């Protein structure tokens, strides 16, 4: 993938994170860093990870959101008006919904401005204690987005790999 396309995707995701948090939760946020390598020591204890599959004619990959229990409880309270005591399988879908909106909003611009055709995808969400996101050397592009707001921090990872000829549509 060319550098300008990677930059376009990174910019679209950043813009979508800020817009989604602002519109849906009336809270301002910042994407403070976009790095090609993870800095998991800054992530704290990740309680929930939501991920969706990315697929286009020429690329496949994943977009993943990682969030701590405290930040996710704050997000759920802001979204629904109810503050849960803990994160459960049921209420953790808030992380999936957040990722879904971020991706869907970014996807439109990525497809139009980047002449790519990423398809819609539904997120899958898991919860656990001190979850980790591993990186892989087999992907062509890996970007980590550090996102901060008054609700707490969360992290987004983008990985993309060019399809071989047999995999292309």
């Amino acid at each position, binding site marked *: 993938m060319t550098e300008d396309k990677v930059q376009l995707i990174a910019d679209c995701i950043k813009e979508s994170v800020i817009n989604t948090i602002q*519109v849906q939760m009336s809270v301002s946020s910042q994407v403070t860093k976009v790095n090609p390598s993870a800095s998991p020591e800054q992530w704290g204890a990740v309680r929930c990870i939501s991920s969706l599959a990315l697929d286009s004619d020429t690329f496949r990959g994943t977009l993943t959101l990682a969030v701590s229990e405290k930040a996710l409880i704050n997000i759920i309270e802001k*979204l*629904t008006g*109810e503050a849960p005591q803990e994160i459960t399988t*049921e209420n953790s*879908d808030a992380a999936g919904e957040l990722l879904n909106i971020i991706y*869907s*909003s970014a996807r439109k611009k990525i497809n139009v401005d980047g002449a790519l055709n990423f398809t819609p995808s539904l997120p899958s969400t898991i919860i656990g204690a001190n979850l980790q996101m591993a990186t892989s050397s087999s992907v062509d592009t890996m970007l980590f987005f550090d996102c901060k707001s008054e609700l707490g921090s969360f992290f987004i990872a983008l990985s993309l790999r060019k399809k071989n000829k047999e995999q292309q549509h």
Partner: protein
Amino acid sequence: MFPANTRILVLDDMMTMRKIVIKNLKDLGFTDIQDAADGNLGWDILNQSSPPIQLIISDWNMPNCTGLELLKKVRADERMKAVPFVLLTAEAETHQVMEAVKAGVSNYILKPFTPEHIKEKIEQTYKKTAGSAA
């Protein structure tokens, strides 16, 4: 505006999004709200509800039966074809909007949205469809 006792069906596979929409509807004064996690469950409610559902707010992208598939079923059914149907979606590409319009969608709400967006879209929908499902 739709009266406060309008029976509303909210469909989304994400519980959190259903809660967000229901909270917004309650804040607008609506009191009779039912919800389900996909179009198949929604179809069951539409067939069983008495009094009948008078407004549907449905996510587009759901497993089993999508919002668009449910819209087509509703519009093909004599009993409920006039029920106002609002699609809730994060997808707003032109061809998708055209597809929904062709299928008879009354309005759509784009995610992310504010409570003001919901109010505005419901008011628009009422003006467009006033009395049609009565």
